[in-house]
């Protein structure tokens, strides 16, 4: 931990900015007020001799591979670009916001937004109790706990395309799930077509992403001091009371973070629906990434598709903004993990 420079980088930045602006006089003042002895000289050294050029290689590469495509993506959303003009996209006609208007009025994007959001929220809500229960159950040592922890990680570490391929096989008509349910006297109908597809998507997403909640809940549990356990034991708190009033408050930070990131990951998840159901997408699971992809690479309406992608960026920006505001940039290893 960078003890000296981290507690209040904002004020430090402000102070150094002020000292640069109004001459050298305020600078010792700001340093004098600093609770950390010796940090003044350290900062002085850092300021005179900062190797900011070391940011250049990584920075240039990131601008080339991230910022350029991002800006170009937004630009394409204003073009009428199809498979014929693709190779000469510089001369594709500029159509302003026509793509956005078409996306909203004719393409069913609003339905896709709703499907994306509702499926993400549903999956996130169900994974919460599962992940928390798993974390609470593996917090105390017992023989074989390491193995259980490894098992809990499996769904999360399996590649998405593998998860989707496997569940697709299990869910096929007369596959192992249909047969098992049939033996139990239940006839659910088709899973990979029709209205059930939505629930299949939610279910598989839950199966593969609950360990993420588990990991973050576990990091929250590790921040509970031993004294807290002792105090609860001395008070003779029952396990449920202890969990509810003593332990769960510690989880609030990491869990809110997990909800945000979970939502982001689910909204952006293309692999799962794509491999699970293939093209063309069943109507009930045409989530936003799926619709955007099909518009590009099935209908070859690249401009329209870019407009849809920008819409999904706006959709993602809301949880992302909250996340970036809440995350501790400077000290916590697990952001939000410790309050």
């Amino acid at each position, binding site marked *: 931990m960078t003890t000296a420079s981290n507690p209040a980088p904002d004020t430090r930045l402000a102070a150094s900015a002020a000292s640069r602006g109004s001459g050298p006089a305020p600078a010792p003042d700001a340093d004098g007020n600093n609770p950390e002895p010796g940090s003044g000289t350290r900062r002085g050294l850092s300021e005179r001799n900062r190797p*900011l050029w070391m940011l250049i290689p990584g920075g240039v590469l990131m601008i080339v591979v991230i910022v350029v495509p991002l800006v170009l993506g937004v630009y394409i959303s204003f073009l009428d670009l199809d498979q014929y003009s*693709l190779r000469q996209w510089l001369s594709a006609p500029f159509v302003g916001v026509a793509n956005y208007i078409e996306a909203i009025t004719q393409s069913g994007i609003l339905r896709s937004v709703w499907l994306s959001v509702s499926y993400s929220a549903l999956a996130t809500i169900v994974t919460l109790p599962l992940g928390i229960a798993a974390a609470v*159950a593996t917090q105390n040592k017992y023989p074989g706990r390491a193995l259980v922890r490894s098992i809990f990680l*499996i769904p999360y570490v399996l590649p998405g395309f593998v998860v989707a391929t*496997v569940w697709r096989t299990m869910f096929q008509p007369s596959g*192992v799930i249909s047969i098992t349910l049939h033996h139990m006297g239940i006839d659910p109908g088709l899973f990979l077509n029709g209205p059930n597809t939505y629930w299949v998507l939610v279910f598989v997403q839950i199966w593969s992403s609950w360990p993420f909640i588990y990991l973050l809940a576990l990091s929250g549990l590790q921040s509970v001091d031993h004294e807290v356990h002792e105090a609860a034991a001395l008070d003779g708190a029952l396990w449920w009371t202890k969990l509810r009033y003593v332990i769960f408050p510690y989880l609030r930070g990491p869990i809110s973070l997990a909800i945000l990131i979970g939502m982001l990951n689910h909204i952006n998840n*293309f692999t799962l629906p794509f491999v699970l159901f293939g093209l063309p997408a069943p109507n009930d699971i045409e989530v936003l990434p799926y619709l955007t992809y099909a518009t590009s690479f099935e209908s070859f309406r690249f401009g329209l598709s870019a407009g849809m*992608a920008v819409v999904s960026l706006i959709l993602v920006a809301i949880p992302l903004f909250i*996340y970036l505001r809440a995350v501790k*940039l400077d000290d916590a290893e697990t952001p939000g993990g410790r309050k």
Partner: protein
Amino acid sequence: MSVSTPTLQTQPSAVDRPGSAQQNEVTRLLPPWLLVTVTVLLCAAVLIPIVYIAMASLNSDIGVASGEFWPSSWTLSNYSTIWTSVGLANGLMNSLIVAGSTAVVSAAFSIGTAFVLVRYQFRGRRTILRLLLGFQSIPGTLIVLPLFVLFSSSATYLGLQVIGTRWGLFVTYLTFSLPFSTWVMVTYLRGLPKELEEAARIDGATNLGVLTRIILPLSWPGLIVSAIFAFLPGWNDVLFASVMTRPDTQTAAVALQIFSSATEGGALPQYGQMMAAALVSAAPVVLIYMFFQKYLVGGLTSGGVK
């Protein structure tokens, strides 16, 4: 994160021996019956599909298609045919080349950036840190299109064929791996003590000297984690690889996806081979995780991205 997690865990041991009966009594969160129930249910939920993959990969296609869990006839032939029928040998090789070079490049570029971000204060530093996290949530669909357009038109404008080559895919994966690798290195370098660097500076080391002589030798665990997290998105990606590859350059993910959708029409899908191929292409990732679990878990939660 990988450095400081142990300090978190050793905190209780200063008070009492962890693992002793008394200690467990005090910190116990669940009554035994509930603990067993939760553990058994969750393990079953995870393991039943996993066992199913293994069983189905040893089964005949008819057996899988008729909903068997335990194969009625066992066969190993799926594991010998997938290398050519699915194109898995070619696919795994391409995945390894593309994801592997992404990992190396990302890790190499991440350390310099992370060093400056951790050790120096400058204007815009927090903005850069935010961007590193924010970039990971950019929808893949927003990046795939402009890259596809750029790469397609490069044949027209530059006479350079990028679509269908591994280069295009490599650049694409850098988009997502660079910010996260850098963030992982930031969290790692934060845990390194400053004293060594200061001693080196007193001895007259330059900034570059500090980075190459002090930071780099201490950073191998961080670099490995950073590289692994750069490797995984490439290995797992379907979106970009499905658009930007030809049959000879397609990755394992795309090979499997194409194989499983191609066999849908008409004839009986080759489920046994699908499951065998799924298992084989998941194995490296799962093994990496199990092997480096202690270090990787911190990284999973620090940026929250798979």
